[in-house]
């Protein structure tokens, strides 16, 4: 059980995004804005991505992060936000033990 009442600054995606911005990096922020079924991460969860594809946080517990990172790099380039939708009800995912079986909508936007 996580008992901390303060931010975990080393792992908090929004703190990391701010740090990257201060370092002069281009950053995208992905946010879970809607879920259906047994989505592994709650609405409001963040994944932050820089232009080199480094990322922190999660929007699905590993199922769709790869795809979100690819889209995020495009969003950093174009500056145009995107809404992504994933169905993670995948037989293979279930078999390898991912807590999937839901669908999620992820909003990806550039910082600045």
């Amino acid at each position, binding site marked *: *059980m996580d*008992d*901390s*009442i*303060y*931010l975990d600054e080393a792992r908090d995606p*929004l*703190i990391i*995004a*701010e740090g990257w*911005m201060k370092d002069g990096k281009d950053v995208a*922020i992905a*946010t879970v*804005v*809607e879920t259906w079924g047994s989505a592994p991460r*709650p*609405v*409001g969860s963040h994944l932050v991505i820089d232009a080199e594809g480094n990322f922190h946080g999660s929007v699905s517990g590993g199922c769709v992060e790869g795809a979100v990172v690819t889209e995020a790099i495009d969003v950093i380039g174009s500056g145009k*936000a995107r*809404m992504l939708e994933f169905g993670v009800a995948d037989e293979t995912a279930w078999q390898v033990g991912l807590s999937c079986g839901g669908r999620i909508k992820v*909003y990806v*936007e*550039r*910082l*600045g």
Partner: protein
Amino acid sequence: MDPYVLKTLNEERRARRAAVLVTDLGDGRDRIVREGDPVAGDLGMAIAKAFRTGNSGSVEAEGRTFFLNAHLPRPRLVVIGAVHISQALAPMARIAGYPVEIIDPRTAFATPERFPDVALHAEWPEDVLKRAPLDSYTALAAVTHDPKIDDFALKAALDAGCFYVGALGSRKTHAKRVERLLALGAGAEQIARIHAPIGLDIGAASPAEIAVAILAQTIHAFRSRGLEAKGAVA
């Protein structure tokens, strides 16, 4: 996201203040709303709900779709007194999602053997609260019965706007406490916020049952935040 908005949001989160990030999903514009900021209409009602529940989600208002990301500090419970009630209260509150800190300068009471896995301070509340101040996302339960230990913490909790303040003791004990708090400079309406006798009235008798009553009252206070104030005005 606007870089200034991100900076502001992180400042609020670091300071343990609640904030809702409002993003217009049509044009991507965003802004921070702090607790108590006036926002009109359906959007304002949805924001108020996000503050109360801590749940994020989308809302349709003014013909647009907004995403509300609720950033609420994690509530915590500070217990003054490493007594029998606290031994039951600490694990129960933790399971319910309210991490507990126990403060009691009496080293015979505040021992790790009696309180395994609990943040325990065998110090005076004056010293601990100077380092880790109370705030509006903190509940305070004073259960030592000893004015020397309880009173300072109760006054500090009222001044910090703790969402819950409870004090153990009979009505007679509390009447004397009210006199002392007035002498310390607390206002009458401030003092009226103290739940005393402590805990929901469920006929609790044993220390563990009293702990249940305190926890239930804490949860009720947390989930009705803001509603109480509006009721007082009406």
